[in-house]
């Protein structure tokens, strides 16, 4: 809000610009339901904060169990976001720019993980890439590589659920891009790859940045696909969300402490992104 700056310069004349008209105020049912909505979202945060063992917080957060999970979460979510951007951007480009038969089928397929229950996605990954999976079996026989129950499995499961967010955001940005900028680059002698690198990507930069960060946040919070495909092995595949789930049974204070960290992280991110996600007036 920048109302403060408006009132600095003007005494009486300037104040008229800041006055609210009836159109700026919601009708009472809208105000009521909006308030209910806010309470709905605020209650869990309040509940979490109320239950937090503030005195022993650092001890809980410093335990081996939590540190291992945090390191794994950070590494795997960053790697998953990188994979999502690397695969999602080209896919978005193809979906936005190339007309081909079955385009809508491909678009539905690659955005499926957004609507699929993550557990189902993880199970599907297991059937495909597990030790006895259609691809995973031959892969294991040939190279000895086993994706499930490893950090690679965590990254893959995270990327699986995070990539659709990049695809949808970037495809939208590419569709809104004025193609004449790319045409101008071409007439100036730039190859298609150079145009993509020097013109297209910088121009969709803000959208790409938002898409990647949101994909990262999604990967950080991923639970269902991870636990199904990569398991819940402490120190190997146990990420922060899984650690919370386990700790709820054994050490409630630790669970609350980790949850608080995740909430703080996500909330901070959303506030930082707010102006880009929803352009400020």
């Amino acid at each position, binding site marked *: 809000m920048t109302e403060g700056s408006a009132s600095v310069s003007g005494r009486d004349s300037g104040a008229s610009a800041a006055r609210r008209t009836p159109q700026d105020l919601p009708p009472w049912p809208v105000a009521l339901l909006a308030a209910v909505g806010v309470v709905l979202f605020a209650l869990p945060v309040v509940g979490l904060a109320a239950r937090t063992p503030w005195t022993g917080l650092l001890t809980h957060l410093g335990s081996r169990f939590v540190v291992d999970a945090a390191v794994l979460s950070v590494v795997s979510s960053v790697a998953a976001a990188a994979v999502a951007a690397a695969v999602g951007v080209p896919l978005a480009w193809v979906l936005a720019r190339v007309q081909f038969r079955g385009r809508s089928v491909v678009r539905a397929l690659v955005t499926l993980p957004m609507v699929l229950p993550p557990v189902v996605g993880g199970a599907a990954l297991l059937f495909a890439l597990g030790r006895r999976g259609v691809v995973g079996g031959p892969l294991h026989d040939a190279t000895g590589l086993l994706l499930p129950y490893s950090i690679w499995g965590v990254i893959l499961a995270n990327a699986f659920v995070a990539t659709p967010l990049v695809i949808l955001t970037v495809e939208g940005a590419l569709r809104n891009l*004025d193609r004449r900028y790319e*045409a*101008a680059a071409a*007439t*100036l002698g*730039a*190859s298609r790859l150079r145009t993509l690198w020097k013109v297209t990507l910088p121009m969709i930069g803000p959208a790409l940045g938002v898409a990647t960060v949101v994909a990262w946040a999604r990967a950080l919070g991923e639970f269902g696909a991870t636990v199904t495909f990569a398991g819940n092995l402490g120190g190997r595949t146990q990420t922060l969300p899984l650690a919370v789930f386990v700790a709820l049974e054994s050490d409630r204070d630790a669970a609350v402490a980790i949850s608080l960290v995740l909430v703080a992280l996500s909330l901070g991110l959303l506030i930082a992104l707010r102006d880009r996600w929803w352009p400020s007036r």
Partner: protein
Amino acid sequence: MSTDVAGTRAGGLDAEIRLVRGDFEMDVSLQVAAGETAALLGPNGAGKSTIVAAIAGLLPLGGGMIRLGGRVLDDPDAGIFTAPEHRRIGVVFQDQVLFQHLSALDNVAFGLTARGMRRSEAHGHAQTWLDAMDLGDLGHRRPRALSGGQRQRVALARALACSPDLLLADEPLGSLDVTARNRLRRNLAAHLSSGRNGGGTTAPVPPHGTPNVPRLLITHDPTDAFVLADRVHILEDGRLTQSGTPDELRRAPATAYAADLSGINLVRGTARDGEVTVADDDGTAASATGRRSAVVLHAADTSMFGAVLATIHPRAIALHRERPSGSPRNIWRTTAEAVEPLGDITRVLLGAPLPLTADITPGAAHELLIRPGTTLWVSVKATEVELAPDGRD
């Protein structure tokens, strides 16, 4: 592929453009000689942008052929299509289309680095171009931080910096306000005429000029076309309805649209307190290729000083057999040199002391008994003499 940036392969443009887009059908044959500035003049929807896209390689031809300086760029029958990045055509786009994420300097350098020039060297060349456009100090600015006229000059520099084999300018003055328009017209005139006047221009000569390159200016504004171009092509509904020098078009417009456009009188002169002393014969004025007697026009606009371009619409000129009484400030005696019936209007070409084109109704022409050689009185209201700073120095 050649990366020879400074290489010049002089040659004209020879385009046979046939395209169908939905209901719109285009069939245009257009030639622009090396060193010539041609204007493509047409109303909105005539297909001007389609021609730009086809020549630049952004839209493949349906039929016909585009040849530039001996290179075939597009020939569907022969299966030849040169991608836009290999055509070496400098395009000044409508609304500039400058890269918003790059500085003015990087915009101008873009084509040079794309063609393989080292970054530092490209920046040196780009700076020289910005200097030539009076933008030397603004190279670090993003396009958003520049005025419309400045942006348009950056766009021109960007297109010219790669020494293209053809300069294609799509409504280069279209989105500008009057002041910026007049200023840029002067800039354009300097760059477009560098091959013709042989040093007669006072504008700084950029590192790689385009003296022997064909230049095609796309516009809907007859003033731009007649002031800047050697040859004007009129495009209506996907067809060229007439081609010729500005003078030929004025004498014998082929269509109502051409008649309307080509009749615009452009008079160069020097303004002072609303009085315009008409310039002597300078050979290139579109209309005022006048005699050596000093003619003074009175204009309502008293704010202009110095070199101006006065515009008088042909329908704003009244003709009389007797000296008219009343308010018009501009009254003089002349002779009719030619009378052309053009359907709804009759065009009268007036002789000394100020050659002008006047359009009157056929009825009035009949009443006045105008024939070549008839002595007439001319009156023009001061409010009908519009002034703009002269595009040329």
